[in-house]
Structure formats: structure tokens, C-alpha cells
């Protein structure tokens, strides 16, 4: 205990003025808490508990994230990642989410993992998993008996695996109440329940082609089979996808399927043997592309359902009623055929059922009982993007209705439309962000050009040119003067970012998402999407890099193709076709402009660049290759790790990595010179329970330093970064020797030219050196810390001159945060086992402690839950104190960080109003006192002499 306390005390000794102020939250940072593409069958509006007023929007997304969204405003209330407890989810696993009104419980299933969560705050009620079985379907039992208390609903789940199993799980503990095994080998398909029975629907392969639908009725109390019948559907049903719908929890659950030519719709009310056939009236002349059935899911609702037909260009729907007594199905009415797409959704209000239809121009609501339109709202221009599916909530008041629908758009965005008005849009497609880059604005471009002209002209010509340029600039003066009062006023009253626009701190960010779309996020406006375009020609792409030029950006995909976009509008300027499959994109310089070179999978540069430069590439057979830019035939050098090791990561110093000082001044005024080589590469190679970090010289391929660690869990993240004259890495270190510690480790190593202060080693202050001949080795000082969190990704903050203290940006995947550890804390020269001497104290060194507790103030994400970050980028701004940080992966998070405080900007704490008031008060004081003093002085002189 005392130990921990001292550690915390030590951590608090560090200069603590790094954190952001509470009132700056949402000004300097923004965060898109995303869920991913909402699954069609697992998204709904739900009143979380009986006492709550409004309903929330729940979804289990295709990224296995379960979350609750407030329909007012569209912000996330809570979320849980369901894949974390299960093994890697296979792609065709069912994402199932069920809930019952007013029970404050959701039940979800993914793969073999079943869990129940409180609807209000997302805490676990129970979890259970069944090894080697996958959940095929899930329903909540809505029994009308008195044995089950109304606040808890049991779950019936259907499992596939070696044998099909139906289990009833307790609603409080998740324990199995009964099991029903089906070892017939039929494909477990769906489960459905009425108020008195549980129906287990399976597909029985027929001797010829196709499947017969087998319905088994089970007693919900003990799971015993009560009856079983088989429907002759083998001519129609060729796969599980052929069955359109198995109705759940309505008073009369039913099965619907269509014949293969999509000419007839067949409906069976579960529990009966009768199959009713309806002709599909298709007068469009086009073939039907899809048929969807929408039915209410509540027990008390009317037994009506809607069948939605879709052809290439038109959609229409039919509404059917089921007669509860006779079990017969009849067609009630048609909804008209309309051009374009439609998205239908069902909602209940007590027993009444409403169908909502969203088209690109309007939203309409009809009652299931009659075809009269209850509400019609026209959407604002422009026409709405295609919605794939939607959920709706209808409120009726007398004759009028109000509706709000959450529609999932083809672009992956999630939009809430209330009475035809778009309330909010969640850009869920950003979950799959693959690359991002800051836009370079082209405002300075013209000036640069002008200055170039001046540089090339004669003295007088250049002078004239400059005078003319300044004269031309005068035309902006009236405009500037006009804006001046407003600027002064706003700068006093608010501290908005707009005043700092010119310093490049609100640069928009381009993000390339997995679904082929590119988004532009406005940093000045809480990261709102300015524009989005579909830049890929295919449905998805794998973006390797985004490179920005002033005014435009080029996106490189892994098939060797590239797209150039206008950075301010998103307009596609240029497209280059696919060539060879590439692993990464390298940037070289051919003298004037940067040139990009794709690196193929085998590590060979795809093309030759004229001019100096070199590449270091990773090949797929696990070696590192060094290339001269002008030769892509033979590598200049090749590096293979020790036998049994595999290279997992390679990193180099960032392209923009300015060094403010070439040495480190010690307390006694002597200097330790930094080993600064621009050609350093840090290679991570893992063996079985070991990791080796190789520091290479990228020109010659020579190993400069090696560090080897045993007892490393190679399945846990191993992150590394290199900058300036230091590198850092992190891994899980386990106990090898009894005196070892167990936990995540963070190692920092600093490179110096010599171990002796004021000594520059063999090279001295030579301005030239050769990597090939006599390259001196660095003097390396390392220190390791135990940390409490795994680190999945590392980056370093970048500022314009590198004067500001650097922060090591670590992504903490378990804590869903990004932490910026100040470099002075990670000084490898901290004294071990003794207190620092006066000289060391002067340097800012303090005693080494093996445990590094992350101070809350280092958390750049502060109170936010920033999940699934894969990459963190940092960019300098025109202000030395300020660095831009952008993190993407699953969520999107960006912040403007000031690692050494905002020393070149007046922050919010500087109250301009107070300054003005003080000056005014002083002026008044002077004005009042001056005459008094003057009178007194005159009086004194006169009266003293009299």
C-alpha cells in the first residue's frame, strides 16, 4: 500500500500542467463514438424500462458492438463489444439481439456467446457460452402464465453444432432450464414462440434437391416435444436463404417462402399443416430482386404482416391479415408501386400495427387495418440517399400520427428522420477507417509562387514586383477593416478557434473508409462531415495511404490504383487504373516534387525513381530489404532475423522530425551529444515467447543495436516507435526467473554519440559521414518500466520546430484511451536506487521507479471512451506549442494537444475582458485622483510659503 502511495506521489511530481481544461472539451477535441453498420434484424426502438418515458435505439452492429443510442441527438449512451469474450467471430455468425418492452434487459448472441445486458446502462445481467456450438436463433419467451414474474423474461435459444439444441435459459442467471436435443441432422434454422408453445423450425434435406421445413412444437415449461409436422417445400426451398420469414412472438407466428421463380408466395401459420399460396402480381415487367416480410413482434399486436417486393427500379408491398380463429391468411390491400427504392418498417402502438414507408422523396405511414394514409411528409431536398433498412416508432394522437425512423443508408450512415425532417446522421461507415490525412490548404501556394518570382528577378524588378504585390494586397484592406470590430468583439467575448484559423490548427481531415467512401471532417466544427464521396469503383477497397498536396489528395489502394480528389469539394479529379498488388506506398523525391512508389507484396518497389533516395521494405518471406531508388532489380542489402524469428513490425523516424538541440545539456553544463541519424529503422521480430528489436542503419543494413527479451507473450500487442535519438517499445513480459515481475513493460532507449559528456565520438563534429564505411555505433542507455496497460500502437507528437517537449502517444486498447507520456518522465537517465544529485535535479531528473503509473492528466482522451483505435497520427501546426492528433480505427478521435502548455497562444484563462476592465478602472482612478493631487500640491506650495 505504502509502495503504491509513493508511486502515485512520484507520478504527481512530474510537471502536471499537461492536461486539458474541462471547459476546452469539445473545443480542442472531437470524438465520433461509432458502432458500425447496424444489423437489419437486430436494430429496434425500445422503452428500456417500465418507468422510462422515451424509448432508445438499440443495435447490434456487424462489428459486434452492442449499443444504445439516444434518438434525441443521436449520441451514444453505452456500448459493449461482444467479440471480446468470444473467439474471433467468423464472418457469417448471426448477430442476434432481442429485447422485451419494460424489462430493462437485452439478450444478445454472437457465435457461441450469449449475454444479457441492462437496457438502461449496459451492464451485464448474465453471460454464458457453449463451446463448439453457435447460436442460430434467439427469442424471448412471452408467456401468458403466472409462473414467470413479469419483470424477467426467459430466453429460448437454438444452437447449431454437432447436434441442434434448443435451450431455455433463465432470465436472471442465464442458467439452462431445459434442453431439447435434435440429433436428426437437420439444419437448425429458426425458433419461434407463441404464448403457449415454442416452435423449433429446422430444414430437413429431402432425398432429391431442396429442403422440407420441419416444425417441432415444444412445451415451454419442460421442453418436451408435443407435436411435429413437415411441410413439403422441397421444390421451393433450396437453401436457408429461401425462407423469407419465420414469425416470432406474434399471436399467430407464421413461415413465409416463395417459389424459385418468385411467382407465388407461400404462407404457413405455424402449428397448422395448411400452406396457403398467393400469386405475386408482378406487372412491372422486371424480375423481382428481393422479397422481404415485415411483421410486428409483440404478442398483443394484430396478426397482420406486410410483404415488400423489390425489382431493379420499382417497389411495392402487399398487406396480409391472418384470421386467428380459422388460421387462414387473406390479402387485405396493396401499397402502390413506386419508382425507386423504399424501406419499410413496422411499429406497434398497443394492438395497432403501423407500416412506415420511406422513399427518396417522402415518408408515409399507413395502418395495417386499412390502406388510408395516416401521415405523409415530404423530405427536404436533396433526395435522400438509398436506405437499406429502417426501424420506426409511430405515435398516434387522435387521427394524426407522428413518426420517427432510423434508416440505415447504403453508404453505411445511420439517419434519424422525424416527420420527414432529418434529425441527425451518424457516420457509422467511419468505423472501418483505413487511412487518414490532413488537408493541405492551398492559400499559401500563391504567395510561395510570388516569392519565387521575386527571387529570380533583378533587384529593381523584384522591388517593383513586391511594391505591386503589396499594392494589390491593399484591396483587401476595406474588407479587413470592416471585419475588425467584429473580430475584436468576438475575441473578447468568446475564445473560439476561428481566430487561429491562419495557424493551421483547424485543418480538415480526409478519412478513407472501408466501403470505398472518403469523408472530410471539419476540425473547427466538432468533426462534422463536410462532404463524402464514393471514391472507389468497387464496393470496398483497401486503402494503403492518403497523400495530400495543396488543394488535393491522392488515395492509394492496395491494387495499385489511385484516386485524386479535390480536397475542398470531394470532386474526383483523376483516377489511375489498378496495376499490381501493393503492400505499402513509399514516398521518394526526384528532385522537385515527391514521387510515390508502390511496394509489392514481395517487398520489391513497383517502379524506378530517378534521383537519390532509398527504400527499406518488408518482404512477405520475413526479411527486410534495402533498395536504392534507382534500382528495383536487386536489393542493396537484405536483413534476416535470427532463425525461428518472424518480423512483425518495422518503423522509422517520422518524415517530419525536427531536432531542436543536437545535445543534451547536463546539470554541470557539459553536453551529452545525441546520436542523430536520419536513416534509422527499428525492426521487431518475434520468436516463440521472445522478442528482439533490431536497430538498423537503413543505408547499409548494418545492425546498430539489438535488444532481446524473453518470456514475452507474442499474442499480446507489441508496439514500437522511434524518433529523434530515442526509441520505445512495449510488450507483455512474464516471469522467467523468480525475481521477475509480471506485467506489461515499456522500454525506453536513448542513443548518444558517446558515453562521455562533451565527447562526440570518433566522428567529432564532422559534417559528412558515411553509413557504409566506419559508421560509429551509438551509446545506448535504456530503462524499462512496468505499466498497467497493454499498448497497441505508439506514435510521437510532432511540432514545427521540435522545441516543445515530445509526448509518447500510446493507444491503450483495454482502457479505450490514448495517453501522452511526456518524454521527461521517460528519461532513460533517471537515477536508479538513489535520489538524484543536485546536478541531476537541475536537469529535471528524478528517481527511477520500476512502476510507471499513468497520471490521469496524461490521458488525451480524458473522460471519453475511445474504442478500437488502430492508428494515431500527429502533425505540426504553425504554432510551435500545438500539435494535431488524429486517431482512427473503430472510433474517430482528434485533439489539439499542447505538450508544454500553450506558451505561444493566449488561452482561455487569459481573460481579455478582465484586462480591459482593469485598464478602464485604472484610467478612471487616474482621472479622479489627478485633479485632487494637483490641487493638494498647489495648496501645499502656496500655504507652506505663506
Amino acid at each position, binding site marked *: 500500500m505504502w509502495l503504491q502511495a509513493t508511486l502515485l506521489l512520484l507520478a504527481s511530481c512530474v510537471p502536471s500542467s499537461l*492536461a486539458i*481544461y*474541462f471547459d476546452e472539451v469539445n473545443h480542442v477535441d472531437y470524438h465520433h463514438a461509432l458502432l458500425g453498420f447496424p444489423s437489419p434484424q437486430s436494430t429496434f426502438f425500445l422503452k428500456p424500462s417500465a418507468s422510462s418515458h422515451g424509448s432508445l435505439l438499440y443495435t447490434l452492429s456487424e462489428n459486434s458492438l452492442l449499443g444504445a443510442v439516444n434518438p434525441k441527438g443521436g449520441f451514444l449512451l453505452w456500448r459493449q463489444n461482444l467479440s471480446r469474450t468470444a473467439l474471433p467471430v467468423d464472418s457469417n455468425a448471426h448477430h442476434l439481439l432481442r429485447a422485451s418492452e419494460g424489462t430493462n434487459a437485452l439478450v444478445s448472441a454472437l457465435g457461441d456467446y450469449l449475454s444479457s445486458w441492462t437496457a438502461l446502462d449496459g451492464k451485464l445481467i448474465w453471460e454464458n457460452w457453449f463451446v463448439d456450438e453457435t447460436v442460430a436463433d434467439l427469442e424471448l419467451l412471452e408467456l401468458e402464465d403466472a409462473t414467470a414474474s413479469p419483470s424477467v423474461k426467459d430466453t429460448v435459444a437454438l444452437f447449431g453444432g454437432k447436434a441442434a439444441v434448443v435451450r431455455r435459459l433463465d432470465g436472471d442467471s442465464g442458467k439452462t432450464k431445459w434442453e431439447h436435443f435434435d440429433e436428426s441432422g437437420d439444419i437448425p434454422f429458426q425458433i419461434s414462440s407463441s404464448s403457449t408453445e415454442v416452435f423449433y423450425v429446422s430444414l430437413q434435406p429431402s432425398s432429391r434437391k431442396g429442403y422440407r421445413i420441419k416444425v417441432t412444437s415444444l412445451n415451454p415449461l419442460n421442453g418436451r416435444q408435443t407435436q411435429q409436422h413437415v411441410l413439403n417445400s422441397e421444390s421451393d426451398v433450396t437453401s436457408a436463404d429461401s425462407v423469407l420469414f419465420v414469425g416470432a412472438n406474434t399471436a399467430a407466428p407464421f413461415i413465409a417462402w416463395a417459389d424459385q421463380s418468385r411467382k407465388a408466395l407461400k404462407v404457413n401459420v405455424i402449428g397448422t399443416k395448411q400452406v396457403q399460396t398467393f400469386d405475386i402480381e408482378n406487372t412491372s415487367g422486371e424480375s423481382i430482386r428481393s422479397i422481404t416480410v415485415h411483421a410486428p413482434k409483440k404478442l398483443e399486436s394484430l396478426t397482420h404482416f406486410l410483404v415488400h417486393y423489390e425489382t431493379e427500379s420499382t417497389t411495392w408491398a402487399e398487406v396480409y391479415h391472418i384470421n386467428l380463429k380459422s388460421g387462414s391468411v387473406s390479402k387485405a390491400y396493396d401499397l402502390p408501386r413506386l419508382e425507386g427504392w423504399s424501406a419499410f418498417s413496422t411499429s406497434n402502438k398497443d394492438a395497432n400495427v403501423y407500416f412506415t414507408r420511406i422513399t427518396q422523396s417522402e415518408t408515409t405511414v399507413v395502418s395495417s387495418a386499412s390502406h388510408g394514409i395516416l401521415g405523409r411528409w415530404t423530405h427536404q431536398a436533396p433526395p435522400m440517399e438509398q436506405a437499406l433498412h429502417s426501424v420506426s416508432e409511430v405515435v398516434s394522437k387522435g387521427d394524426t400520427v407522428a413518426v420517427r425512423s432510423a434508416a440505415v443508408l447504403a453508404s453505411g450512415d445511420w439517419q434519424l428522420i422525424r416527420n420527414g425532417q432529418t434529425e441527425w446522421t451518424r457516420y457509422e461507415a467511419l468505423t472501418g477507417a483505413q487511412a487518414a490525412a490532413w488537408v493541405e490548404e492551398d492559400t499559401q501556394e500563391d504567395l510561395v509562387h510570388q516569392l519565387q518570382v521575386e527571387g529570380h528577378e533583378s533587384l529593381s524588378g523584384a522591388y517593383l514586383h513586391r511594391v505591386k504585390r503589396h499594392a494589390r494586397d491593399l484591396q483587401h484592406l476595406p474588407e479587413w477593416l470592416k471585419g475588425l470590430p467584429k473580430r475584436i468583439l468576438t475575441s473578447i467575448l468568446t475564445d473560439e478557434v476561428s481566430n487561429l484559423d491562419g495557424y493551421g490548427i483547424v485543418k480538415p481531415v480526409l478519412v478513407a473508409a472501408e466501403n470505398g467512401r472518403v469523408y472530410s471532417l471539419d476540425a473547427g466544427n466538432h468533426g462534422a462531415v463536410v462532404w463524402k464521396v464514393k471514391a472507389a469503383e468497387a464496393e470496398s477497397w483497401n486503402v494503403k495511404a492518403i497523400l495530400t498536396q495543396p488543394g488535393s489528395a491522392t488515395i492509394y489502394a492496395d491494387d495499385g490504383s489511385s484516386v485524386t480528389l479535390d480536397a475542398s469539394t470531394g470532386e474526383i479529379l483523376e483516377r489511375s487504373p489498378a496495376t499490381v498488388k501493393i503492400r505499402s506506398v513509399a514516398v521518394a523525391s526526384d528532385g522537385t516534387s515527391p514521387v510515390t512508389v508502390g511496394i509489392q507484396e514481395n517487398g520489391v518497389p513497383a517502379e524506378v525513381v530517378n534521383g537519390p533516395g532509398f527504400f527499406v521494405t518488408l518482404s512477405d518471406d520475413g526479411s527486410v530489404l534495402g533498395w536504392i531508388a534507382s534500382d528495383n532489380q536487386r536489393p542493396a542489402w537484405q536483413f534476416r532475423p535470427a532463425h525461428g524469428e518472424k518480423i512483425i513490425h518495422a518503423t522509422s523516424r517520422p518524415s517530419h522530425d525536427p531536432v531542436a538541440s543536437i545535445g543534451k545539456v547536463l546539470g554541470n553544463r557539459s553536453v551529452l551529444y545525441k546520436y542523430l541519424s536520419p536513416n534509422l529503422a527499428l525492426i521487431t521480430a518475434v520468436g516463440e515467447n521472445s522478442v528482439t528489436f533490431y536497430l538498423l542503419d537503413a543505408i547499409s543494413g548494418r545492425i546498430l543495436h539489438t535488444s532481446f527479451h524473453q518470456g514475452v507473450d507474442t499474442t499480446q500487442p507489441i508496439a514500437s516507435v522511434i524518433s529523434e535519438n530515442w526509441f520505445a517499445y512495449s510488450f*507483455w513480459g512474464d516471469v522467467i526467473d523468480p525475481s521477475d515481475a509480471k506485467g506489461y513493460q515499456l522500454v525506453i532507449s536513448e542513443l548518444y554519440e558517446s558515453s562521455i559528456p562533451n565527447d562526440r565520438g570518433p566522428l567529432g563534429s564532422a559534417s559528412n559521414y558515411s553509413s557504409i564505411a566506419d559508421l560509429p555505433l551509438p551509446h545506448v542507455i535504456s530503462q524499462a518500466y512496468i505499466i498497467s496497460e497493454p499498448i497497441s500502437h505508439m506514435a510521437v507528437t510532432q511540432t514545427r520546430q521540435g522545441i516543445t517537449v515530445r509526448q509518447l502517444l500510446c493507444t491503450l486498447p483495454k482502457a479505450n484511451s490514448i495517453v501522452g507520456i511526456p518524454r521527461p518522465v521517460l528519461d532513460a537517465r533517471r537515477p536508479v536506487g538513489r535520489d538524484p544529485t543536485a546536478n541531476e535535479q537541475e536537469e529535471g531528473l528524478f528517481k527511477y521507479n520500476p512502476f510507471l503509473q499513468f497520471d490521469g*492528466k496524461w490521458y488525451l482522451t480524458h473522460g471519453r471512451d475511445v474504442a478500437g483505435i488502430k492508428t494515431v497520427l500527429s502533425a505540426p501546426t504553425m504554432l510551435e506549442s500545438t500539435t494535431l492528433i488524429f486517431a482512427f480505427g473503430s472510433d474517430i478521435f482528434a485533439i489539439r494537444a499542447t505538450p508544454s502548455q500553450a506558451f505561444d497562444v493566449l488561452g482561455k484563462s487569459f481573460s481579455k475582458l478582465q484586462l480591459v476592465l482593469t485598464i478602464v478602472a485604472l484610467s478612471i482612478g487616474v482621472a479622479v485622483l489627478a485633479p485632487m493631487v494637483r490641487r493638494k500640491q498647489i495648496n501645499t506650495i502656496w500655504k*507652506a510659503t505663506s
Partner: protein
Amino acid sequence: MFISLSSIFACLILSVPALATSALTITIPPSNLLPNPNALPAVSHATLTTISSSAFASASKTNSHLTAPLSRSATFTFRLPPSTKPESYLLDIRSPEFVFTPYRVDIAADGSILGVWETFRGNPWDNRGVEKFVLTDVNPDVNGALTGSDLSTVDVNIEAKILTRRGFYEERSKFSPLALFKNPMILIALVALGFTFGMPKLMENMDPEMRAEFEKQSRTSPISGATRSAMSGGGAPGNFDLAGWMAGATPRPTQDVEVSTSGRESGGTTRRKG
């Protein structure tokens, strides 16, 4: 006790494969830092971590990193499946705002919990702290296998301890008039202002005898003399040797002071009369 247990681990590798799983439940009790554990956010979770032997990487993946989400009763529950060999896990409890003590959890190959101790980060793993739970009714037999009737059904419940609360935000000094008045410069200015305006009024309201007395006194006291000289308009303070006075050199300057004050005194009185 510990030594005997650690010797068990060494020979547990060959112990009998048990079937049932045991459960480890961590409860968060109300404490000063966190009076209501139900207020913890849903992202809070606990993890059990140890090295995964890469030979069984795919099979043991679930066993080497276990995660338990926060339940609605503010607990974390791990179901511990049997493993191929005994494991020693690091138990971390993670919540955005709170820092919890880490624990060491030793688990036998059959999934039963051998012991739970507090542990100290950055210390040797054998350096254990407070014992939270230890399986007592177990005696290793000759082969090192555990004997005990229903060993694997032991469910363990321990309480988590909060170490500290993380402060994410920097406090901004707020503008308040009170803080302004706490500033010594402002206070001095105010006192001086008070003297400038208040003193003459005070003097006028005194009856003439007291005033004479006061003036007499002030003439003898260098301090009040200096104050008065400053008050009366700072006309000619040049004669007052401030440095000398502050240095405590009394005898010589007193004379000077007497001269100067008397001179100004008359001025002051005449003004008041006129």
C-alpha cells in the same frame, strides 16, 4: 504456507483433469472514493492475464486473456475453464476514472483457484501482499495431485480495493473579485487610499485637545511622522532618511525628522485652519 503452495504449482502439471469450472467473483464495495459502486460506467471490466504459450496459441488464447464485464450488481465474474497446466494470472480491474489494486490469482490445471493475493507492480512476482483467499483444505499427495472432494466447485469471492481516482482535467483559476482582494498589492493600495481619504476626516472630527495631543505624539514618533508627511501631499519628504530609519540608525536622523516634521506640521495645521 506460500512456499508449500508454490511447490504445488511445480508438480501440478500432471494433476488430474477435472471437469467443472470454478468461478471467481470480484465485488466492488462502497468506499470513500466511490460511495456508490453502481455508478461505475459500463465499460469497466476486469482482466486475467498471463503468458500464452505460443505452441497452443490458438487453443489457449481464451485461457491466457480472460475478460469479465461489469455486472449490474457491481461485480466481475470469471468462469475459469480447465487448462493444460496451472497458471498464475495477473488480475487487473479497469475503470476509466478509478485505479484498483492488482491481484495475483493462482489457478490449478483443473480450473480451481489456489489463491488470491494482492500484488505490487514492478516487484518480483513472488513478492505477494495481503492474502485474499487461499485454498486451505488441500494436501498434495505423493504425486503432487490435489486431493479434495469437490475441489473444483469452490467459488471465490474477493473484494476489490480502489487506490485512487484519476483526475483528467486541469483546474482553471477562476476570476473572482474575492481573489482580487486577496492580492497584497491591492490590499496595500486600498489601505493607502483609506488613509488618504479617511485621516483628514478623522482629524477634523477630533476635539482640539486630543488633536493637539495626537500631533504632539506624532511629532515624537518617526513612523507616524513619516506617514503624516506622506499624507500631507508628499510635498517635501526629501529630508526623511528612509534607509537610515529602516536600518535602525536612530539618534542622528531623529533630529532631522524633528525639523522636517515640524516644518510640515505647521503647513498642515495652517491648511486645516484655512
